[in-house]
Every structure is written in C-alpha cells, then in structure tokens.
C-alpha cells in the first residue's frame, strides 16, 4: 500500500499537534508564527492533493479510500481553511491569549472533514464526523466573554449530540441488516425491509443536521450568529461540504435506489429546505443571520443535485460546493470586516459601504449575486448544473421550486447591495482590513467571477471526481 497518499491527513494532524505544543512554548509575540505554520501546512496539503489528484489507493480492505472524489473534497477543505484563517486575521484580537489553540482546532476540524471524505466505512465516517464536530463545539464557544458565543456553543453541543445519536442508530440498523460497515459491501447484503428504511432515514436525518436541511436546520441560525464569524464561515462551507461528501458516498454506493427510493426523500427535504430557508431569510435584518438562512437555502439547492443522483446532479453538487466556498467566504469575510469595524452586522451597518470601502462593497455584491445565481457569476453555472440534473431525473417540480426560490433570494441579497450603495450613513471613512483578509477577499472575488465566466475549468475537475460513481 502506498501510504504516502495519506500525507495530507498526516501532515495536517501533525501540524495541529505541533501548533498546540508551540503555543505552550512560545511567548506572546512568537505565537504569531503558529498561524503562519498552520497556513503554510494547509497550503501544502492543498498542493499535495492537487498534484496527486488522480492517484488512487484503497486502504485496509476498503475502510479508507483515496480517490479523485475524496481528493476533490480535501482540496475544498484545505482551500476553505486557508481562506478562513486568512480572514480570521481580522478577528484575532478578540481571541485574547487563545490564538494558538484556535489554529490547532482549525487543523483538527479540517482533518475530521478529510477523514469524512475519504472514509469507506460507516464507523470511520463517524469518527471523522466527531473529530470535526467536537472541534467546532469548542470553536463556536470561543468568545468566552461573549454570551451569545457560549450559548451557541452549548446549543450546538446538545443538538449535535442528539444528531449523532440519530446517525449512530441508523448506522447500527444498517450494520445489523448487512453485517458489514464497509460501504461498498453493504449494497450486496441488504434487501427491502422496514428496518432498512428506518436505518436509511435515520442516517439521512443525521447528515441533514450537519448540512442544516429543514427540519433539522433549527440550530444553524443561532449557532451561525453566535459563533465567531470566521468559524461561522467554516461551519457553513466546510462542515456542510463534509456532510455532503459522506452522505453522497454512503447513499450512492451502499443503498441502491431499487431497494429504497431515497432520492424522493432527499428531493422532499431539498424542497422544504429551499422554501423555508429562503422565506425566513427574507425577513432578516441582520446580515450574518440572513447569511445563515441563506446558507440553509443553499444546502437545499445542493441537496436537489444529490436527489437527482445522475451525472449532472452529482457534478453539480461538487461544483456548487466548491464555488460556494468562494462566494460564501467572500460574503462572510466582508461581514467580518464590517463587524470588526462597526461592532455590528445589522444591515444598517452596511449602509454606504460602497463609498466607505468600495472594495468590500464590490466583493459583497459579486458574492451575493453569485449566491443568488445571477450570470455571469459562478453561482449561475452551479445552479444550472444542479437544476439540469433535477430535470433530467424527472424532478421538474423540484427545479421549478428551486428557480422560484432563487428569484425570492435575489430580493434579500439585493437589500444588502441597496444598503451598501444607496443607504446613507452618518459614519464615513474607509474601513480597515488586514492584509491577509484582503488577500482572501481578492481570491474569493476573482474565483467567483472566473468560475462563472469559464465554468469548464471546475466542471471538468468535478467530472473527474464523480467518475468513481459512474
């Protein structure tokens, strides 16, 4: 076995522990360096994954798989982590003397996500999931002096534990019926019976919690709003993508549609998620909370591609998950900058941002337009793939709901744009943005436009990644 293919996971874990130790050894100023070490190691992970994108290997009888699909998601997580860490430079002062632990936990959460993407076994997925989630419990409550942050952390812990229980219950039922936890072997061992259906529904519910699909979404707005904004970003783009990565692998490989039409279940969840997420987002006046609901709605769109379960849909899932990293991180990064500068994320705080900081306003506008699916931004191409997949699979109604809800979403996204360009603000003067965050903003802006103008770049990559299912 070629263990060198595990280098990304090993590197990230080792650096995570190293950072913890260095945080204890270094004095105040030297602690800055741990951020750079984490950042560089994540960039190294990204490069490693991309360089060896098509190298595949099955480890330990199928328990762990390195394939193009896993590599696509690993690249996504590393990229998201890099952007989040760059962006968190604005936020560091609020973390007090706990800076190094922040980086360590970011690394561990990333490792957990990578394990989820690569795991070929239900229990391994669960271990990855817990590693990620436990890291997030801590990160969510990271602003100890801030009540909403602590409250968010506690809520997330309680609800996360419930969802883990549900997920484990589902996995145990599937194990009981098939006698194996290796995903590729399950399909041959199961038949249609009530226990299987119960197991599948419970697994779906467990992951639906992670991706914040309705009705398992209730935690998301509270936690997204309470958590430090960089963490919210990572929850929204990373944790969600990891949930999709595992869900997709389990359902496509282990549960044949002939045994149980889970596709319809997911289609209904997708429809509910799109409708509820968008309608509630419509009424929000706080941008961070609006983005939380919008990210629920976005999960609905992606879920529609998974429900389609065909080439277009699955390609769309991966394509959208990736562009979502850029567009959503961009939007959250601007929200972070406004929060750091004004102490608020209310929509009023965004008033006249177009005059105060044209760059921030431009990034926000482009990213929101992308999330709304307006061409030529990336989101348009992504939604195009997702809804084409849904239509091809016969879910015309789902695609229709998706389009209708995208239309509604334009309204609340543009309210922010309106505030930024037309709103008036007694405060003037440019906002300060730290250089690393500025870099992250540029990357998000350019990638969102580039993917939208030339989607073939990413879509070919996604195509290679999903070739393992075809």
């Amino acid at each position, binding site marked *: 076995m070629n263990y060198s293919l595990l280098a990304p996971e090993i590197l990230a874990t080792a650096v995570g522990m190293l950072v913890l130790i260095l945080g204890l050894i270094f004095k105040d100023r030297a602690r800055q360096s741990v951020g750079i070490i984490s950042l560089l190691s994540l960039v190294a992970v990204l490069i490693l994954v991309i360089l060896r994108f098509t190298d595949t290997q099955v480890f330990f009888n199928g328990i762990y798989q390195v394939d193009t699909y896993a590599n696509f998601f690993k690249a996504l997580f590393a990229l998201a982590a890099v952007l989040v860490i760059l962006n968190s430079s604005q936020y560091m002062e609020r973390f007090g003397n706990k800076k190094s632990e922040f980086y360590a936990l970011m690394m561990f959460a990333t490792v957990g996500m990578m394990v989820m993407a690569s795991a070929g076994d239900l229990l391994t997925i669960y271990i990855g999931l817990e590693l990620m989630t436990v890291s997030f419990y801590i990160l969510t409550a990271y602003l100890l002096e801030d009540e909403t942050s602590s409250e968010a952390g506690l*809520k997330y812990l309680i609800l996360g534990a419930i969802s883990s229980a549900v997920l484990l219950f589902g996995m145990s039922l599937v194990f009981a019926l098939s006698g194996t936890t290796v995903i590729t072997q399950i399909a041959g061992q199961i038949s249609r019976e009530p226990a299987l*259906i119960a197991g599948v*529904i*419970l697994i779906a519910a467990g992951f639906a919690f992670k991706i914040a699909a309705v009705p*398992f979404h*209730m935690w998301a*707005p*509270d936690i997204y709003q309470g958590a430090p904004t960089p963490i919210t970003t990572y929850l929204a783009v990373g944790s969600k993508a990891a949930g999709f990565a595992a869900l997709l692998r389990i359902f496509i490989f282990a549960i044949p549609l002939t045994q*149980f039409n889970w596709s319809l279940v997911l289609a209904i969840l997708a429809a509910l998620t799109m409708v509820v997420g968008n309608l509630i987002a419509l009424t929000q006046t706080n941008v961070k909370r609006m983005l939380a609901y919008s990210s629920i709605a976005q999960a609905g769109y992606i879920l529609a591609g998974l429900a389609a379960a065909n080439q277009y849909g699955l390609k769309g899932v991966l394509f959208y998950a990736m562009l979502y990293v850029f567009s959503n991180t961009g939007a959250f990064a601007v929200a972070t900058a406004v929060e750091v500068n004004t102490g608020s994320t209310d929509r009023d705080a965004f008033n006249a941002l177009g005059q105060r900081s044209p760059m921030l306003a431009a990034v926000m506008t482009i990213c929101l337009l992308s999330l709304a699916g307006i061409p030529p931004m990336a989101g348009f191409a992504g939604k195009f793939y997702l809804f084409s997949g849904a239509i091809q699979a016969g879910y015309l109604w789902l695609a229709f709901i998706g389009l209708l809800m995208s239309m509604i979403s334009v309204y609340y996204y543009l309210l922010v744009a309106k505030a930024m360009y037309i709103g008036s603000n007694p405060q003037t003067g440019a906002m300060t943005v730290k250089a690393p965050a500025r870099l992250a903003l540029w990357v998000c802006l350019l990638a969102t436009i580039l993917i939208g103008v030339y989607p*073939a770049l990413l879509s070919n990559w996604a195509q290679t990644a999903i070739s393992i299912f075809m």
Partner: protein
Amino acid sequence: MQNVLSLSWVIPFLPFLAFALIGLFLHRWPKISAALSILSIGVGLILSILISMIVFAGEAGFTYEVAVRWLNMPGLSVDMGLLIDPLTAVMLLVVTIVALLVQVYSLGYMHDDPGFASYYAYQSIFAGSMLGLVVANNFGQIFVFWELVGLSSYLLIGFWFGRNSAKDAAKKAFITNRIGDFGFLLGILFLQIIFGTLNYSELAGAVAGYGNTAILITVSLLLFAGPVGKSAQFPLHVWLPDAMEGPTPVSALIHAATMVAAGVYLIARAFFIFNASPETMLVIAIIGGFTALFAASIALVQNDIKRILAYSTLSQLGYMVMAMGVGAMAAGMFHLMTHAFFKSLLFLAAGSVIHALANEQDIWKMGNLHKKMPITTWTFVIGALALSGIPPLSGFWSKDEILLSALASGHTALYILGSLVAFMTAFYMFRLIFVAFFGDNKGGEQAHESPAVMTVPLIILAVLAVVAGLVGSPLMNNAFDHYITYPGAFHPAPNHSIMIISSLLAIAGIFLAWAIYQKKWVDFERIKIKMGGLYQLLYHKYYIDEIYAWLIKHFVDGTARLMEWFDLKVINGAVNGIAWLTGHLGITLRYTEDGQVQSYALYMYAGIIILLIAALCAVFTVLA
C-alpha cells in the same frame, strides 16, 4: 514565427486589461492611464503586423483556428476561439493602426478634459471589443463582442454626458442598434437551431448543403439586421449623424475602424450565408445603394463640418454594403480599409479645426484656414481627394473596384447610382473645403496650427490615404482581391472606361464646387431659394427623424400607455399580492425559531418520525 499566431489572443486581451487596470487602479493618474492604453494598442499593432506577415506570406486560403470550449451542454456548445485568416489580418491591421493614431491624437485633443483617464479606459474597451469581434471564430463569440462594441460606443458618444445632446445621442445610438441586434440575435438562434453549430467553418459546410431556400432567406435577412444597425444602413441610419456628439477623435474611431466597420466585417465574415441566397443579396445591394445615394444627397446641404463627414460615412458605408450585395466581398472590404484611413484622417483634421476654433463646427463661420493651419488643411484636402476618388489616391482604387463589380455582375442601375454618388461626394467634400479652408469669411482669424501630437497622426494617415489603395490596384495585380476571397469569387478584368468616367465625374464635382463656392460664378443663395422645397427636404434629412418621432409618439407611446395600465392594475396587483403572501409566510415561519433547544430537538424528532412513517407507508402500501 508561427508562435506569433497562437499569441493573437493577446491583441484583444491587452486593451481589456488596460481598461480593467485604468478603471480599478490607475484612474487617479491620467498620464499613466493614457500611456498604458496607448501601449496596449501599440503592442497589438506590432503583433498584427507580425501576424499579417505570416498570413500574407502563406497561401490565399491560409487559416489558423484554435478554440476552447466555453460552454458545453446538450444541444448547445459555445466556443471562445481565434480565427486568423487574411480577412482577420486586414481588419486587425486597420483597427490597430487607426485606434493607435486616434489615441495618440487624443493626447492633444483631450489634454485638459477632466475625464482624461476614463476617456482612455473607454477607448481601450472599445478597441478591445472590436479586436475581439474580429478574431472570433463563431457567432456566439462575435455577438458578445458585438454588444460590447455597442456598449463602448454608448460610453464614448455620451462621454460629455453633461450635455443633453450627448446624452440623447448616446441613447439613440444604443437603442437604434438594439433593434438591429435583436434581428441579429434571432438569426444566430436560428443558425444554432437549424445547423446545431455556431462555428463559421462548420456552418459554411452545413449551409452549402442546405436546400430550404425560404429558411435561408429568413435567417440571412435576420442576420443582416445586425449590420443594418451597426453599419448604419437605411432605415436604422439615424444614430450615426448624432453620434458626432462624442469627442471628435471618437467620431473618427466610430466612423472608420470600429463600430460601423463591424457590420461590414460581419457581412464579409458570414458571406457564405448571404451569398447562398440571391434574394438576400439583392436586398443587401439595394439597401446599400439606396443608403449611399440618400446620405450623399443630405450631405450636399449640411453646414456642420462633422455632420457633412457623418453623412459622407453613411454614404460610403452604403457603397461597401452595396459591394457586398453585388457579390464583390473583396471590393467591399477593400473600400472599408481605404475608407478607414481617409475617413479617420478627415475626422481628425476636422477635430484639429474644431479644437483651434474653440468648438466651432459651422463651416460658414470658418474661412481662410489654409494660411493658419497648413498641415491640417493639406492633410484634409488629401483625405477629401481620396474620398472623392481622384487617382491615384486610395479611394479611387477601391471605389473603382466597387463600380466595376456592380457593372460586371449585371447591376447596371447600381453602377449608375454609384457613379452619381461619386459625383455628389466630390461636390460636397469640396464645397466644405472651399468654404471652410479657402473661403473669405473672417471666422478663421484666431486659428492656430495644432500641436505635433495631433498633426503627426494626420500626416501618417494622409500617407496611408494616398498609398493604401495600391495593394488592391491593378498596378499590384489586385493583390487584395487575391487574398480576401471566398469560394466562387469573381474577378472582373480592369475596365479603363469605368476608371476614366468615375475620375471625370469626381473632377466635375470638384470643379462645380469650385465654381460655386470659390469663384461664386453662381449665386448659391439664389439656388437655395429657387429650390426651396428640395433644399428644406435635404436639409432636414428627409424628415426621417421627425417621422420616427411621430411614429414613436403615436404607436409606441400609445402601446406603452396601455401596457402601463395593465402593468399597474393587473400585474402589479398580482405581484404585490404574492410578495405580501411570501413576506407573511416568512414572518410566520420565523417564529418557529424561538431560541429554545428543546423545541429545536422536538422539531428534529418530529421530522424524523413523520419522514419515517411516510416512507414506510409509501414503500409498503404501494407494493402491497
């Protein structure tokens, strides 16, 4: 050397890059912005020269094509590609030369304008769009750049948007073009639906084997709507004379190398489609010929120096389109090239006059400029001689090719019409010259010659206006025709009597203008009064603008009022109702979020239970 061809994407890319850099960062430093813009087009010129050397060293049918798939889905794929052949090479040269000279000239003309940097940004995007259009290898791509050309012309025509006339002119240009573009887009969609591709070479094969003439006529006429708008043919010509509200160098660019050239270029590029249906060709020839005559007659009586030149452009574009229509694609392109040089020369020289006279544009308020502004005057005269078709200047050769083709292809009426237009052209151009440059009015007293940055481009263009025609003349074995060709092209032998007749007509026109306006042997005020009705008709441009305004006021506005009522009462009501419903649904749903962990868990469990029961019931009752 071949590597240069694969670099040709750089030619349109650099101006776009310059546009982006100026727009985003450099606009605070006008000088750097201008330098960057000029540098980007200068590099484009060098590359264009290198590319032309490769293309014209090769065979006549030389083509180089590369493409990347830009959009791919079942039933539609659009490429972004490059197609380099002799036609492209000629256009690249013309556009980069004229754009470069115009930009250099603008350094002088626009030097104290507060919008100097954005002017150069717009110039860059204009040049970049035009160059992107020229190198496109399919209709999808050409349409993108076609629209970008329209957008940039809007920005430049309305550059002095503080003036109402400039604002209106920009809107008029844009809206008039939209009408043509609508037809053009429909034509493109038809092509995609019928032939399943938008690529030129693939279409050329498909069209050749296509039998349904009715559809072919429809599609080619729809496609022709694009050039009618962009190249300002009757009846969509109304925007071009007004477009001179932009800065004069912009007029030079629009009238010579970009925008109006795009339409003619499109006809040449898609010639295989037009040529496949004789009926469409006849329509093209008649519209072109009519525009040529119609515009020339208006130019006879105008008093504004730029307006005279604008109508002369219309008339010359009519010539080019007519050439296309009689099947002489090469002759049309040849005239496009020579016209680009002498018309940009005329506009820039006119700009030099306007600049010197503090924005005076009425030729009757000028006079005796030749003493104060010798370079401007003599370069203008060279341009006018070329335009009038006096041998051996460039305009003579290209105009002769068109007249020859019209006669040789059996369109005798169009030949006579063309010759008449040649006479009128010479007359109105020298009317302008004798009044403005040699007349005895006192208006030109305070004039002074423009700085070198403006006169050097004039001199370069004057040289080009003299010699550019040689490449297509019988003296050089009609080399231009030899390269710019298409399957089934015909090359009529040079006809000396046509050359002599058209030269004599031009000289007669000049003589008549000299007799009336210089020697005053005939009192033109009396002619004006005697032919009052005709004069008024021509002076008011056949009242076309007024007719359009009347039609719009009565039909479009009437329909609009009806629509407004429907929109306000019916649609708005429905939309507001839905919005209200959506909003209230949102508010209701919002209250499910009460912040209580217990209720969140409750919803989760309820969700699981409902899903589970529903799934079990569905699966087992359907089967049972």
